[in-house]
């Protein structure tokens, strides 16, 4: 059996999410060691555009499961659809994004097809034909090396770690896969609007976070301004969330989101171990804190000892200048 790799692409509002292109990069690299073709699948309703984009990334084939029943998320339908494609494509490795969508679908399909799933991997190697994955555990306080005892295996890859593959011009063949959607017992019935979060934390290139040092909901305003300038996601410590200054979906840390952006700016955050767990694998960390002994400085690449309310407005103006020069 050829060691093919199947990428499970992920769409949002009719276009592919960036992580899908990152999976192509991972798959190409893996395929060098495993020796097999890279194929991809896209699942949803009215996703012709996604399939076409995917076909231009250099994969050898795209499976398109397009069904009106997949217009909103229903675990049973998506599980059935992906299981169907896996049975057809017979891949050795199934790659998903370690997003909420990818983690959930990986687990349900893993159970249905009795496959192992290695969640949230950040690096890999092919060692003598065997896939060896690394993944952070304890929210990044340690790193585990995990390998499947046999193939096929499912793997989810953390977003933002690998460079996204570019879209070329040549298109791979697209095969439409028919399947009969089951009547789901659980399904999403409505998208709920909330305070517009422009950038999703887990996928953000830049994150600007505030902590207890922000002092109030109003205190978060300059922090949000700075995030806006940078096109960054807004994050927070649990202390800020518990105080009710900002929505809990912004919490970064062991019991919040784990983030690994290019740049993480921690403002008025002391750097408790649970917070560090969620952000210490960021590429560059900046900390602004009044207290020179704050533990956050131990992980920061650049630190400013000072009052965030003095520093942040200047940062905002300076970033604007630099960004406008580009």
């Amino acid at each position, binding site marked *: 059996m050829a060691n093919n790799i199947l990428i499970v692409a992920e769409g949002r509002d009719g276009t592919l999410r960036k992580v899908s292109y990152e999976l192509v990069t991972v798959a190409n690299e893996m395929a060098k060691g495993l020796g097999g073709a890279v194929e991809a699948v896209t699942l949803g309703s009215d996703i012709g555009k996604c399939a076409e984009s995917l076909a231009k990334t250099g994969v050898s084939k795209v499976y398109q499961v397009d069904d009106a029943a997949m217009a909103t998320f229903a675990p049973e339908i998506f599980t059935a659809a992906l299981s169907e494609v896996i049975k057809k494509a017979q891949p050795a490795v199934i790659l998903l994004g370690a997003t*909420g969508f990818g983690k959930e679908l990986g687990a349900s399909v*893993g*159970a249905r097809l009795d496959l192992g799933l290695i969640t949230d991997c950040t690096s890999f190697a092919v060692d003598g034909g065997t896939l060896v994955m690394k993944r952070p555990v*304890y929210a990044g306080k340690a790193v*585990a090396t995990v390998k499947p005892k046999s193939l096929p295996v499912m793997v989810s890859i953390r977003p933002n770690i690998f460079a996204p593959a570019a879209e070329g011009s040549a298109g791979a063949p697209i095969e439409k896969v028919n399947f009969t959607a089951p009547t789901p017992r659980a*399904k999403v019935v409505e998208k709920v609007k909330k305070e517009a979060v422009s950038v999703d*934390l887990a996928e953000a290139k830049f994150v600007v976070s505030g902590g207890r040092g922000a002092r109030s909901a109003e205190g978060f305003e300059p922090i949000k301004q700075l995030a806006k300038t940078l096109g960054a996601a807004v994050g927070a410590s649990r202390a800020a969330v518990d105080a009710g200054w900002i929505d809990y979906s912004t919490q970064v840390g062991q019991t919040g989101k784990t983030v690994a952006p290019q740049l993480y700016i921690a403002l008025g955050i002391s750097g408790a171990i649970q917070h560090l767990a969620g952000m210490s694998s960021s590429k560059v960390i900046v900390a602004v804190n009044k207290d*020179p002994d704050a533990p956050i400085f131990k992980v920061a690449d650049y630190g400013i000892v000072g009052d965030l309310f003095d*520093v942040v407005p200047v940062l905002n103006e300076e970033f604007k200048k630099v960004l406008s020069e580009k």
Partner: protein
Amino acid sequence: MNVVVLIKRVPDTETRIQIKDGQVVTEGISWIISPYDEYGVEEALRLIEKYTGKVTLLCLGPDDAKETIRKGLALGADEAVHLNDPAFAGGDASTTAKVHAAALKKKQFDLVLAGKQAVDEDNAQVGVRVAELLDLPHVNSVIKLDLSDDKKSAKCLREVDGDRDLAETALPAIITTQQGLNEPRYPSLKGIMGAKKKPIVDWKAADLGLDPATLGAKGAKLEVINIEPPAARPPGKIIPGDAATAAKELVHLLHEEAKVI
């Protein structure tokens, strides 16, 4: 109504993970119920307070996990099943889910609550896998849960990838919990005293009709070959000067030196 909550014993989030010979040193660790599972226990207790019924805890772990189970009983759960067999040890999400599914088959329930993920291995799999193995519907990452009057279905607000969705599910179902669902209570002294008398039954592979060869390290599909500390970060620099000077210099460094901007 009967609600079952899956609770995992994990190291306290304060713990600095020590590693020796490629494994986590477990001596000296203080153990807690995984924080997401605490939301599950709290939600179950609130449902029972509203509708009456029983909360059962299910925990797979070694003998020492009894202490963690007692903590859950102290919060107000009625009874617990300890999935306790050396054959279960060293498993992965797939084997752990198989054991839980087999245990749930022996129970009557309207709802099962599990954490979105356990904060040790951060697998985010077991709840969803159990649902699939039992052919039950599931809703993942729920921050608000409302049962219908006839308790045959539930409306759930879920938060996934920065989006919020309203989902509906028939019951029985498995629901996994996300931060925001509720504020877990602290145990009362009376609760702690009372927990000592509450029943905890032990189930082994044989009680569940499972073949030990398919479980634990033997049955696992994955093998953890090493655990290591994360790569150390190079020492950083503190940028001197008053706020304005330092801020300007910082932006300059991020642009010219770190090249992230």
